[in-house]
């Protein structure tokens, strides 16, 4: 397919879809598919279409994450601009007939707060595009970014455009994406690589997975644009072994893109070649760190390497390597299509654009939401996601998984952006946002994250390998009523050591949940130490063995 054919295909597919009476899109992503049986629902809708003699007029297909994961399975009716949740097979005939009364109390309109409060850029195709049909993606403007880059722009201009957009890395560190691209583009090397970090090991984070399963072509297009800008011809998507559906969807998308000439030797019939292979992670959180990820792609143990040299200079097999997160790549095509000024108009001065959050825990509407950077936490949790269910009280929001901290009630109005969160000892991280209510003990939560880091430490450097064990041991002693105030000083000293001397981000960030809960919930630590009591009442110190 060359440029003209792409535009032509887009036209044809759009007209075909416009001709339909209705398109029913069933969320075919992780939660809905694997757990809530959305595949069965699609089958029953197919049957209902036949029964009602509407094949060719009403069409059913899969689509990306509609955001209401807590009320899976979800289905969207295209022409009614409505999304229904908790859908069952028995609802199929009503969906096909477009009978809305059936879904009383189970309907979220685009105008309702849940969708109206959002600003969906990365998730724009959710509810419009079937992840397994490249034509759908093209009909929604897919690969137009790549087309524009190849036919109208020079690599330098593409890098400048990304720099001007103000986009920063969505993996958690927030490094300006444009600068990183520039570093790689500047390197003189016959071989360069573009890697998409889809390891997403944070517990409670499912944004990248949903984007990969819901709109894989968007990520491929972003990677191709990046490859053009930095001069790479080979790309890798490093996907977690724990999400086989994502691996399958990405492989299908790559096959389709290669068949349509959107990837491979002559992209869009131009002399730009770019191949993408999938590498499957085998279960190691540390491989989310870029040098450990590179070691894993090289078939080694996933142990990080000291930096400098940084990957843009010397990465995969020693060649200059660009590594960006799934969500970062998912923003590239819209920036190129609609221009950096449009993107920079969203978010705040320091943190441009939007951020996808994976809400979970004690919240009315758990799932995926995308809001401009800088949106206050309260808006996300209470205005968009329906707040904390009746009978529970908000205690804290935990962001960034085991690498970040918690945001207590008094900081509910903090604008969600890089710098403001760092100021209160937390960080955006990948975007996992778990709401914790009063029944959860923060000391136990800190121990849970430390146990996670202890199990996932690669064991190469001493501060992290031995430090996590000692911090976990100390937290365990405190919870079991055998702690002392001196233990709090020991925790602080170990945290200082790990932050200053650990070889990679895992060790540096492992103390964050502990120090953040210590800062905001010190009374719970003291209650465990002095009164052997859990203020939240959830972790009764089972083996409360006081020293005889």
């Amino acid at each position: 397919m060359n440029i003209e054919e792409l535009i032509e295909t887009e036209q044809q597919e759009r007209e075909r879809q416009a001709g339909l009476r209705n398109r029913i899109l069933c969320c075919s992503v992780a939660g809905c598919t694997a757990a809530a049986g959305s595949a069965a629902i699609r089958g029953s809708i197919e049957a209902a279409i036949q029964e009602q003699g509407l094949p060719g007029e009403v069409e059913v297909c899969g689509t990306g994450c509609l955001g209401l994961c807590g009320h899976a399975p979800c289905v969207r009716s295209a022409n009614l601009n409505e999304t229904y949740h908790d859908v069952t097979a028995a609802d199929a005939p009503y969906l096909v007939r477009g009978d809305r009364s059936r879904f009383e109390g189970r309907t979220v309109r685009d105008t309702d707060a849940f969708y109206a409060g959002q600003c969906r850029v990365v998730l724009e195709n959710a509810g419009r595009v079937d992840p397994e049909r490249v034509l759908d993606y093209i009909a929604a403007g897919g690969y137009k970014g790549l087309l524009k880059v190849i036919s109208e722009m020079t690599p330098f201009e593409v890098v400048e455009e990304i720099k001007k957009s103000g986009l920063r890395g969505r993996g958690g560190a927030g490094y300006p994406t444009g600068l990183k691209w520039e570093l790689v583009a500047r390197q003189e090397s016959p071989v360069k690589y573009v890697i998409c970090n889809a390891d997403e090991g944070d517990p409670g984070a499912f944004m990248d997975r949903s984007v990969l399963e819901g709109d894989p072509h968007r990520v491929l297009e972003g990677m191709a644009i990046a490859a053009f800008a930095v001069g790479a011809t080979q790309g890798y998507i490093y996907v977690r072994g724990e999400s086989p559906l994502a691996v399958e969807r990405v492989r299908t998308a790559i096959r389709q893109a290669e068949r349509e000439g959107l990837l491979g030797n002559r992209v869009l019939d131009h002399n730009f070649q770019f191949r993408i292979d999938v590498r499957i992670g085998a279960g190691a959180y540390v491989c989310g760190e870029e040098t450990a990820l590179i070691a894993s792609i090289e078939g080694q143990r996933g142990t990080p390497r000291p930096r400098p040299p940084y990957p843009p200079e010397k990465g995969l097999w020693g060649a200059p390597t660009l590594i960006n997160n799934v969500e970062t790549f998912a923003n590239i095509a819209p920036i190129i299509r609609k221009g950096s000024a449009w993107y920079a108009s969203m978010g705040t001065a320091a943190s441009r654009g939007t951020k996808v959050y994976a809400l979970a825990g004690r919240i009315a509407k758990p799932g995926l939401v995308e809001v401009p950077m800088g949106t206050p936490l309260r808006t996300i949790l209470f205005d968009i996601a329906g707040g904390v269910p009746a009978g529970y009280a908000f205690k804290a929001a935990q962001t960034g998984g085991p690498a970040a901290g918690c945001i207590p009630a008094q900081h509910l109005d903090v604008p969600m952006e890089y710098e403001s969160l760092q100021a209160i000892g937390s960080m955006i991280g990948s975007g996992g946002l778990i709401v914790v209510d009063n029944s959860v003990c923060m000391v136990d939560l800190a121990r849970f994250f430390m146990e996670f880091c202890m199990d996932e430490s690669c064991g190469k450097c001493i501060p992290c390998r031995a430090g996590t064990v000692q911090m976990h041991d100390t937290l365990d002693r405190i919870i079991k009523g055998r702690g002392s105030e001196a233990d709090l000083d020991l925790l602080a000293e170990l945290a200082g050591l790990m932050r200053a001397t650990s070889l990679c981000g895992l060790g540096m960030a492992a103390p964050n949940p502990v120090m953040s809960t210590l800062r905001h919930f010190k009374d719970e630590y003291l209650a465990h130490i002095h009164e052997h009591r859990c203020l939240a009442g959830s972790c009764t110190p089972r083996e409360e063995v006081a020293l005889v």
Partner: protein
Amino acid sequence: MRVRTLEIDGQMMTGAPGESIFNVAWNNGIHIPRMCHLGGLTDVGACRLCLVEVEGQSRLLPSCMTPVREGMVVRTNTPALQKHRKLIVELLLAERNHVCAVCVANGACELQDLATSLGVDHVRVRYRHPQCEVDLSHPRFGLDHNRCILCSRCVRVCDEVEGAHNWDIGHRGTNARVISDFGTAWGDSESCTSCGKCVQVCPTGALFSKGASVGEMRKDRSFLKYIVTAREKHQWIR
């Protein structure tokens, strides 16, 4: 080949391009603490003991792997660094079972020497007392995991100098262990050439020659420079 001039602990020094801060400091009489670094082996920057402060850098850098740059200003022994190094040694002493009194390497152990030089007179974290194996299956050598600090010198010397790659590291985190061949007994290894280089480079009493009793183990690491120079420069320097 323009040399790089830089300042380390207030002294002006010069080093060849690409030479590490550690080597330049060492050649000028400043011995930065280290455990996983050993001249002649590629560096991995794992033990974090040789971290130094470099002006203009927000993070501490491993001196063993950081090449000198013109005009660098380096501090190798600030109070903060000493505090970090002491706690790292304490973490090591508590991680496994380092009972110096009954160890073959008593008196000749780099970890013991480092604890002394850093003034570690007690360990503030709780001793873990893990249960670790001792592999005596090799006819001439033994491996005591209680004394292993996972510095990976044995892995590197076996891979780079001998070339047999009998050793590697298995498992992960605090369960990581040095493994031989298929994670099987050292004596049954088909890769091992019994050259004993790993025993000589091991900083503690983990790898030892059989027959050495308490305090009798003496290791000679000078062979490493001798062989590396012989292979690379065809000079046999005694």
